[in-house]
């Protein structure tokens, strides 16, 4: 039977796309914007906004084709429709989701690319030149995001090996987390390397929008409005809730009092970790994934980071990187063919092959993202410099990079 456009699926995917857009602007922008010094609030939010704009253009110029176009040796897609030429005119249906238009699938995937790059900005805030960031975004998007998206989702070599990543634990959270780590190792520590949020209210609103938008991110990754989307939505919510409660528990044990930022961080940890597994696991697995990921993320940001001394300002590696890895491994354990017939299941179903390819994907993508990010950032550092002047860093980037102030008394 020929594929036919399904208006229910199309409606759901249009909504999912809009939900994921809401995650970056304003979700990430607000979440990050509240966590930094008041003198950097505009710069921090601007990083998310401008990233979204750059990726929005490049995705349709060549990004979608290279990520999702016809596979070339498992490495990259082919550039058959630059500028998305002819795709909208011919009104084709997507080969990845056969009941929705190709254009809709493409813009849905565009939002993933945009938020992945925007997430990295949280690590480098308060000290990176805006011009260096403008140079970093298109290059990193092209050399890291696009190929990795092809390997995992566009029929590339990892997909052929059977590696699974439902909504982006490896493509989104691992790549952004590892890239964040590579970037901050080059950038160095801030003059005032503290996490003292100037406006936690922004972060609460941002985290709320992220949680809300994540339903589009994960349930939308079903590609249609059916049982799989429902299942993904439920496990996403459960994992977020458990992640939040687990971080509060850690706060209570360690300091005696639960903190709001901790609760938000735990929720993000639960969301990020369930993302790769959302379409393959049941609620019991989601509870375990959210709980374990939150504890690991807590340990990474409160114990590992101060001991290793790198300045991942808003804990992009500690939360997204660690949770992306956790979720991607969890697939190899908990994946269930009863949830998704696309998999024969993980260890719990007697299959050990899946955990092997998941680990391979994590290691290869992690190393690739780290090396490529390091090289890209090193070259940008040589050409235009990565870091602002010390006096500008102390004064704040809003004035020095944009000649604007976030707050004015009169």
């Amino acid at each position, binding site marked *: 039977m020929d594929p036919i456009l399904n208006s229910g699926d199309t409606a759901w995917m249009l909504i999912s796309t809009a939900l994921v857009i809401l995650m970056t602007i304003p979700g990430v922008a607000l979440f990050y914007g509240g966590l930094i010094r008041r003198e950097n609030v505009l710069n921090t939010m601007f990083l998310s906004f401008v990233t979204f704009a750059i990726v929005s253009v490049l995705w349709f110029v060549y990004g979608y084709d290279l990520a999702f176009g016809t596979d070339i040796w498992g490495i990259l897609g082919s550039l058959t429709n630059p500028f998305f030429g002819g795709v909208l005119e011919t009104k084709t249906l997507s080969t990845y989701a056969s009941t929705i238009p190709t254009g809709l699938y493409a813009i849905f995937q565009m939002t993933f690319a945009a938020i992945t790059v925007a997430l990295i900005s949280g690590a480098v805030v308060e000290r990176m030149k805006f011009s260096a960031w403008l140079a970093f975004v298109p290059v990193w998007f092209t050399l890291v995001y696009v190929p990795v998206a092809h390997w995992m989702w566009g029929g590339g070599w990892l997909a052929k090996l059977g590696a699974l990543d439902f909504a982006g634990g490896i493509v989104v959270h691992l790549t952004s987390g590892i890239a964040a780590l590579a970037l901050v190792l080059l950038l160095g520590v801030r003059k005032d390397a503290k*996490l*003292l949020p100037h406006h936690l209210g922004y972060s609460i609103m941002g985290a709320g929008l992220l949680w809300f938008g994540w339903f589009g991110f994960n349930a939308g990754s079903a590609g249609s409005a059916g049982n799989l989307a429902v299942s993904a939505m439920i496990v996403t919510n459960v994992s977020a809730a458990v992640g939040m409660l687990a971080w509060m528990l850690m*706060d209570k044990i360690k*300091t005696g*009092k639960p903190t709001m930022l901790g609760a938000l961080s735990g929720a993000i940890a639960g969301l990020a970790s369930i993302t790769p597994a959302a379409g393959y696991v049941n609620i019991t697995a989601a509870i375990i994934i959210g709980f374990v990921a939150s504890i690991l993320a807590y340990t990474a940001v409160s114990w590992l980071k*101060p001991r290793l001394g790198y300045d991942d300002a808003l804990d992009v590696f500690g939360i997204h990187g660690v949770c992306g890895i956790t979720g991607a491994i969890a697939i190899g354990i908990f994946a269930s063919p009863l949830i998704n017939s696309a998999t024969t299941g993980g260890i719990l179903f007697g299959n050990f092959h899946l955990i092997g390819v998941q680990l391979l994907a994590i290691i290869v993508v992690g190393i690739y993202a780290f090396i490529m990010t390091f090289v890209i950032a090193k070259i940008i550092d040589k050409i235009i410099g990565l870091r602002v002047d010390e006096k500008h860093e102390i004064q704040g980037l809003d004035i020095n990079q944009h000649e604007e102030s976030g707050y004015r008394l009169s």
Partner: protein
Amino acid sequence: MKKIIAIIRPDKFEMVKNALEEIGCHGMTVKDVKGRGRQLGITENYRGRDYRIDLLPKTELEIVTNEANVENIIQTIVKTAKTGDIGDGKIFISPVEDVVRIRTGERGENAI
């Protein structure tokens, strides 16, 4: 004439303001300020790490009054703003040479 500067807890401001009103002290200038005393601030915890906050938010009241009212105002502020815990604040009293009411040009105590 004296100027009284009282640094108090922000959450005590409404009570102090009402108590001063009851003793007939209406005029005041109020600012949100930050500061610290001997205890050197407090500790806050973000994502499992402790940070010492050196400067705490306080409210500053500035009152210029006749000599005769000074003691009554001070006692009212002390009684109302006191919790007994560290961080209740301080009161500073200094002489004022002259006062000018801009609207009428009056000078001295008549202008207060």
